[in-house]
């Protein structure tokens, strides 16, 4: 093979790489186009959902700014402009928040069914329920500190809750999963429990967590549920990862004088990283949805609560922009966190073939 041939091969590989990159951009464009086509079809007059779904582009649609040019997003009530103006304290948001959460009519209070529902629905119901049952009173919305009337506080609180829950759950899941390899009793006790809860989708468990822990203690509800969910997933992933380590490698470690402790530290811990890291990505992706869902169900502070408020105010002109802003925020956040995670995973799995393919 001459140097010209080598250059040809290299050029061909570069062309192939460029072709793949262009293809992926085209696929994304096709996906976005199909999404909007489906939206437009659903909003047509002939569609049964015509009254519920506004067209994406038009006078009442959330993307009307785009018709005025991309800069429309940043002007007046465009999604990004709206998000930016209301990031910190905003009098406009305060008015809307108070409007979205008026006092409850007393007729709902004495109905036991309503009381159960109230704990699912939010502070306005639970405040009166708690008053009757002698439980702790949540802070009425009118008395919340000013920094709560903007997006930033809510979103930061949600991020912290979800990351904390995922971190606690990962530590617990790994500790239980990996220790169950050394102590089979742990597996005998925990596997049936995990299998029992694992069979029901975690979204079904979410309302129960809200009932058990209430909305007065969001730390327990949101962080607790995310921790519970992550623990289950990480338990299964760590077990499976450890079981996938070839028996020959463990036996080799034993004949080299490996003790349970050294085998755990130098064989199981590093050897399970690729599968555990993959599992963590899946768990974290689910945790975002789960955390926000619990907040939508009734927690007073958090990104999910913002969605709930704007859902209540859906008739207002700002609502589409606000909802688009929130969806965009969560999308960007998930992509950024995943990208950071990928950097860490690349480093931890640089020894493996998968790590090499990731670029190390």
């Amino acid at each position, binding site marked *: 093979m001459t140097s010209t041939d080598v250059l040809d091969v290299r050029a061909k590989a570069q062309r192939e790489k460029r072709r793949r990159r262009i293809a992926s951009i085209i696929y994304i464009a096709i996906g976005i186009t199909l999404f909007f086509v489906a939206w437009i079809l659903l909003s047509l007059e002939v569609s049964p959902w015509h009254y519920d779904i506004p067209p994406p582009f038009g006078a009442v649609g959330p993307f009307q700014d785009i018709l005025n040019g991309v800069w429309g997003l940043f002007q007046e009530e465009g999604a990004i402009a709206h998000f930016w103006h209301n990031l910190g304290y905003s009098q406009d948001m305060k008015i809307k928040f108070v409007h979205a959460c008026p006092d409850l009519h007393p007729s709902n209070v004495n109905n036991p069914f309503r009381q159960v529902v109230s704990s699912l629905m939010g502070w306005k119901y639970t405040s009166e329920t708690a008053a009757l049952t002698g439980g702790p009173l949540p802070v009425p919305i009118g008395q919340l500190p000013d920094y709560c009337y903007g997006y930033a506080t809510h979103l930061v609180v949600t991020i912290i809750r979800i990351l904390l829950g995922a971190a606690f759950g990962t530590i617990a899941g790994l500790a239980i999963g990996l220790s169950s390899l050394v102590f089979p009793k742990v597996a005998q006790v925990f596997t049936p429990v995990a299998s029992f809860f694992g069979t029901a989708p975690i979204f079904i468990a979410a309302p129960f967590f809200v009932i058990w822990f209430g909305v007065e203690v969001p730390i327990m509800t949101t962080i607790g549920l995310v921790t519970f969910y992550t623990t289950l997933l990480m338990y299964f992933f760590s077990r499976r990862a450890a079981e996938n380590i070839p028996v020959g490698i463990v036996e080799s470690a034993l004949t080299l004088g490996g003790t349970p402790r050294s085998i755990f530290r130098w*064989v199981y811990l590093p050897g399970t990283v690729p599968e555990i890291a993959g599992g963590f990505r899946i768990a974290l992706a689910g945790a975002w949805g789960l955390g926000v869902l619990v907040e939508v169900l009734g927690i007073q502070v958090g990104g999910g609560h913002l969605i709930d408020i704007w859902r209540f105010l859906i008739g207002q002109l700002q609502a589409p922009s606000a909802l688009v802003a929130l969806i965009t925020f969560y999308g960007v956040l998930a992509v950024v966190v995943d990208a950071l995670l990928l950097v860490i995973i690349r480093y931890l799995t640089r020894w493996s073939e998968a790590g090499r393919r990731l670029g190390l």
Partner: protein
Amino acid sequence: MSRVVSFEGLWCVFEHRSGQLVNALHDVNFEVQPGEFVCVVGRSGHGKTTLLRVLAGLQPPTAGQTRLGEQVVEGPGADRAMVFQQDTVFPWLHVRENVEFGLRALKVDDEERKRTTAHWLEAVGLTDFADSWPRELSGGMRKRVALASAMAVGSDVILMDEPFGSLDYFTRRNLHDVLLDLWEETQKTIFFVTHDIEEALILADRVILLAEGKLVDDIRVDLPRPRDEDVRASTGAVDITKTILAHLGITEEEATQV
């Protein structure tokens, strides 16, 4: 300190899925003196690996016992390091850390660990690859890492289960030379399982022949070393080969066809 290895009335019986009992080892008795190079030869499925696993402490015998000096083998330990047929180098550790693994487990102090690791890496010719990942090495180099790891823990006995079976002829021959050099330097007892008669003739002081789990012959290989092509073509070598083939139930004609 090297010790005599004794197999005393060793039986290993497995139950097949069909419920049938299979004698993997059938009343095996023999002794190996310190510093001997023993090749265990036999057909596939006739108990070679089981014998090695029992000595490694990875497989408990159904009856009988294995002793290392006065000590009865009851589990795996660093005094009987094993090199496996499959790739068992830890892929998540650098080459240097792989060799260090056993020393860490044995809580050898840092300075001694580094010195020992460097010595064995040099002995197998991998000093320049100490900071490489195993995935960056060839199959033969990974076997050298496994060999260095086993040697580094200071075992009395090295167990090798068809370690070079998956390698090409040239790499295998090269590793034979590396192994023989290390054996001559350390005078460790080596148990080497193989189904390759030529390999046994190149390496062994003694050939233990297993057929259907029974020890059918114990052949002393008194050929001069190094055992190059001429030595292996000598009358003595050919006689040993014929004996082994006869015990394995293979005629010379069949062996030629193979």
